[in-house]
């Protein structure tokens, strides 16, 4: 039995969560970067004729983590390209990057445990969405949303600005499975929970600001700065990674 934290080597928020989860009794807890996970998964990934999978990891020290033995995964992977790939020629490098990414996606889906967040074809640690999508989903979840307007006459970077634009976030809320951490009130908590459900993203960071009409949606991300959630977020993560099998 084990837990995994998958992340980039530079992901300070994931390292913080790793330490916090370990101190909450999630042991053994392995920290593996995305490229290494993809390389290790690539040693043996099987799909039988009925879609059943074997997704074991043989760690560099020789230990084997059986896919069935993983209890929960905190997944923050952005890139699943092993470091040795950079030595290839450009065309082979691009090909190998696609191959390892495709493999990681399949391997993570094959794990029969809770994964926060599941890998998707549009984001290895949860689906990345355009601001316009978030604006629609947030409104559907019951949030007040500022008007979002973009034009092709603007630079592409402008079209990627968040729904809230330059407005500062006065509150960052975390949806974690069925829990919500940091919500200013019950109504906001319910809307955050609903937004995470609509976005099919069980671990979601939601930025809000207070306006005359109440708490307004600014942005959401499947890759939030976890450390902003403090101990309550770690407690919620530990519960989610324990319970949701």
């Amino acid at each position: 039995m084990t837990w995994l934290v998958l992340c980039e080597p530079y992901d300070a928020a994931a390292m913080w969560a790793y330490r916090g989860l370990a101190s909450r009794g999630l042991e053994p807890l392995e920290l593996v970067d995305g490229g290494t996970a993809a390389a290790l998964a690539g040693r043996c990934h099987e799909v039988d004729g009925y879609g059943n999978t074997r997704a074991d990891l043989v760690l560099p020290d020789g230990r084997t983590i059986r896919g069935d033995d993983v209890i929960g995964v905190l997944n923050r992977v952005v890139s699943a390209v092993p470091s040795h790939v950079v030595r290839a020629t450009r065309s082979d490098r691009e090909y190998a990057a696609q191959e390892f990414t495709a493999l990681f996606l399949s391997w993570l889906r094959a794990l029969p445990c809770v994964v926060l967040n599941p890998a998707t074809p549009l984001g290895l640690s949860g689906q990345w969405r355009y601001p316009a999508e978030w604006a629609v989903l947030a409104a559907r979840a019951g949030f007040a949303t500022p008007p979002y307007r973009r034009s092709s006459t603007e630079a592409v970077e402008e079209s990627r600005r968040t729904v809230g634009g330059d407005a500062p976030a006065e509150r960052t809320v975390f949806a974690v499975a069925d829990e919500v951490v940091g919500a200013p009130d019950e109504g906001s908590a319910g809307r955050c929970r609903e937004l995470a459900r609509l976005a099919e993203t069980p671990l979601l960071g939601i930025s809000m600001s207070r306006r005359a009409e109440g708490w307004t949606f600014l942005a959401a991300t499947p890759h939030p700065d976890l450390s902003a959630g403090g101990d309550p977020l770690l407690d919620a993560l530990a519960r989610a990674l324990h319970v949701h099998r």
Partner: protein
Amino acid sequence: MCTDDHTSILLCGIPSEPPLALVRERLADLGVRYVVMAQRQVADADVELEVRAGRPTGTLSIDGCAHPLESFDGVYLRLMDDAHLPELRGEPVDGLARVHSRAVHELLMQWAEITTARVLNRPSAMASNGSKPFQAQLIAAQGFRVPETLITSEPDLARAFIERHRDIVYKSISGVRSIVRRFESLDRRRLDHIAWCPVQFQEMVTGVDVRVHTVGREVFATAIRSDAADYRYAHQSTGSDVAISPVELSDELAERCVALSSALGLGLAGIDLRVSPTGEAYCFEVNPCPSFSYYEANTGQPIAAAIARYLAGS
């Protein structure tokens, strides 16, 4: 600048490309209004997108005529990667024409994701076949058999799999360089190379290839007979031709194909099956943007007409 706010269907892509051209003809046959966003003329296009209280609105301007985005109640996307448009060849990454093209495409994709119009297919739904084993898990969940598969970078594991199954094919894991090849004796000499990058090996499934196009609930099945491991490349790989003909699926199998497309969020899909001699349907993959025109041209199956009806909501 004129304004055209008549309800219509939006077709995006290269107008001369056969699938788009066929759908355009069938829409004309139906008497349904349509607008073509010719991708190669992207320099003459602009998109304004606004979301207010969760409702997307805006305009698509083409050749000086503004079309409200809300006026489109059907959308067919056959877009090539805009980075490779011939009109942008030689244009630097930050060149104005390239930046403008990217902005138009990106806003169109944003809108296609959130519009309430019938979209074939939404960009997010088209992404699952970027990983074949990932998609295989989704396919199997809908009750299809999938070929036994080993992805490995360990030559010894590959050898054991090959010994066990004898007849093997190999192919990429992602959608890149996606050609199916039969594993032959010469390949044994190269097997140690997989240590650098894992390879997907699959048992060879014998049977008849069937390409199933689903359009909403309509199903068009085409049998393909070929000697090649990948019939799409039969002429190059074996020098042989393929014979294709319409085929009837059982109601149960047709329904399962519709359910699979629906589960993947695809109003239009090209499902690659191989039906074994015992009648079992193995599914290899689901193509979210199928070039159905090849099958229509060789069988007369009215796939484009079904797409036109779907887009028109009829």
